[in-house]
């Protein structure tokens, strides 16, 4: 049974500005689904439509098998954590967390019990009498989470809950959310972020949004290993995947591509004979590049800048102005490469092939499994 189901959901502002269209999603009970995508792609809008704060202009939204398009937010069984925490500044932490319960006319004993239980979980017991302004950013964020916990919702909605925290606190709070999810395996969570590390670490499934639609849905590693299109390939992973143009010169179980830059790439993604001679893009992640010996190479270029991080060395190759540089991430320390013409290659299993932006792993939208080497 799907807990949250979106069918052909779309959003148009003012009758003309179409922000989202044709969104289909099945979010199962107990899942932690992360919406990720570039800024302005409609993540918050989609989340707010699930919350009921934004009107759904097309399609249907079901929560627990019930169409809730026209059900007010408080009756949808959802709770939301806002990016700015949205704590009520004039209420103590206790009153903030108790607000929803008191509105629901719960007895004061019940309220106390629920608030204290939530405060315990979030290490907030000592701060219950404080006003939000007397709390640190991390504590405020925990109060915001506590405020949703006490309501015991079916679905938790998070809108970039960590983006106002500094880097160290972000990691700590991220772990806390992961633990919280583990303590509440039954509850469904939808989490919005533009940060792909958050998405990779928290999600059971990631929904990549782009251009008003869903670019790909899948478990984090699926998206990393088997991206459906160039957008997802470049969005997931950092530094992003290198995209290099070429032409197919060999088809079959393996695909061979002659690179426009002079090299030759072999990919273990199969291709049909019809693709012979087709212009394609080869995708290789920086971390999948290895130094090419005397043999075949995929990329050849002059190293511009190197960044030695100890465990890895990043090579930024010179690129024509306005173009992203090709990046290699080689294990270990490599010195003296700067200004050198260097050749890189990669394991065929790690070489992606995109025709018209779509991966050959998915001919006709179907996922082809590749034998692991």
């Amino acid at each position, binding site marked *: 049974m799907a807990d949250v189901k979106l069918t052909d959901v779309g959003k148009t502002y003012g009758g003309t500005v179409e922000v989202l269209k044709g969104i289909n999603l099945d979010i199962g009970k107990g899942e932690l689904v992360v919406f990720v995508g570039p800024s302005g792609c409609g993540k918050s809008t989609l989340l707010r439509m699930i919350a009921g704060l934004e009107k759904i202009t097309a399609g249907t939204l079901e929560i627990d098998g019930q169409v809730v398009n026209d059900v007010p937010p*408080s009756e949808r069984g959802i709770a939301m954590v806002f990016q700015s925490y949205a704590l*009520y500044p004039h209420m103590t932490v206790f009153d903030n967390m108790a*607000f929803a319960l008191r509105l629901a006319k719960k007895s004061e004993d019940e309220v106390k019990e629920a608030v204290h239980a939530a405060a315990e979980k979030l290490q907030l017991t000592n701060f219950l009498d404080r006003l939000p302004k007397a709390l640190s950013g991390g504590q405020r964020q925990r109060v915001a989470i506590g405020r949703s916990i006490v309501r015991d919702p079916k679905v938790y909605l998070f809108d970039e809950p960590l983006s106002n925290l500094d880097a160290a606190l972000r990691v700590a709070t991220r772990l806390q959310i992961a633990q919280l999810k583990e303590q509440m395996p039954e509850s469904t969570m939808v989490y919005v972020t533009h940060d792909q590390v958050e998405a990779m670490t928290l999600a059971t499934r990631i929904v990549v949004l782009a251009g008003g639609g869903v670019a790909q849905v899948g478990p984090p590693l699926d998206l990393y290993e088997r991206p459906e299109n160039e957008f997802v390939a470049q969005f997931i992973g950092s530094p992003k995947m290198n995209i290099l143009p070429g032409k197919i010169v060999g088809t079959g179980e393996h695909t061979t591509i002659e690179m426009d830059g002079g090299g030759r790439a072999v990919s273990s993604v199969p291709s049909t004979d019809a693709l012979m001679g087709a212009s394609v893009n080869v995708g290789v992640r920086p971390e999948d590049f290895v130094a090419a010996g005397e043999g075949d190479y995929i990329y050849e270029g002059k190293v511009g800048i190197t960044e030695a991080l100890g465990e890895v060395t990043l090579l930024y190759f010179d690129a024509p102005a306005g173009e992203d540089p090709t990046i290699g991430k080689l294990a270990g320390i490599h010195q003296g490469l700067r200004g050198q013409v260097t050749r890189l290659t990669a394991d065929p299993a790690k070489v992606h092939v995109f025709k018209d932006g779509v991966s050959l792993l998915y001919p006709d939208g179907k996922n082809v499994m590749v034998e692991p080497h």
Partner: protein
Amino acid sequence: MHPAIQGLITIVIGVGGCIGYFYFSNQFLDKVLFPARGPNAGRNINRANMIRPWLFLFPAIVALGLYLAYPVVETLRLSVTERIPGGGSEFVGFANYAQMFSEPKFWEAMRNNMLWLIIVPAFSTAFGLLAAQLTDRISWGNVAKSIIFMPMAISFVGAAVIWKLVYDTRPEGQDQIGILNAFWVAMGGDPQTWLTIPYLNSILLMIVLIWIQTGFAMVILSAALRGIPEETIEAAIVDGANPFQIFFKIKVPQIMGTIVVVWTTITLVVLKVFDIVFAMTNGQWQTQVLANYMYDKLFRANDWGVGSASAIVIMLLVTPILVWNVHNARKEMR
């Protein structure tokens, strides 16, 4: 000379005088008194910079001293003196105050002032808040706001004249030109001379001030309402609050500081209310207020002693509210 030209010359002399003062006094300070050259250049610059603030403040200090501080002291002195027939004055202690406290008209003014004090700020603030909230989300909200704000641009005397027409009474048989009587008669009543009916007439006068001050309250509170973070309201919606609960439990508490400032500011206006009463009833029919009482004593009865005593009473009533108001306004600005 044509009065308009006179006015223009006044403006030119006034503005030119100000600019000239600041320019030449600074020139004098920097070039003659403490020139930034010679062996003591550094010391001179420091000294000049220490004096400069006082140079800028000097005109304001003189003006405030002359028109505010001196009158306060002088009023205090006058309130404990009595005019001697034939010229001069003598010290009489608190006799003026004693005389004033024994006058029923003074206590009527006190009582009325207290009523004004409670009713006008309360209703102005409440209506202002209501108008601010109701005009917030509608397309013609700004037009509505402008109309509600417009009375602020009218002087108190002008407003009094307008409302005197509203409350106007014509002898029976003639057409009633006052809207209130027109309504009253249309409803089947006899025309009333509204401003002569005690208690009701005080309320009718207060309505004039409420009409003026609502616009002020609305503008300030409207800005405050806009300053409330939208997400706290959305959080309350998700928490299940209805529009009334959002208004009273989320919005109003968040702008409480501003409400207090608006309330006390209007309170100060009310305590000093004079023009409206003066122009509409002149304190007759039990509508007297302190400021008009003071004016009566000072300029009609020519009794400077009691007049000054009542002025001191008004000042004593205003001061604590003023202090509190400034305190709250400062807190809001932080």
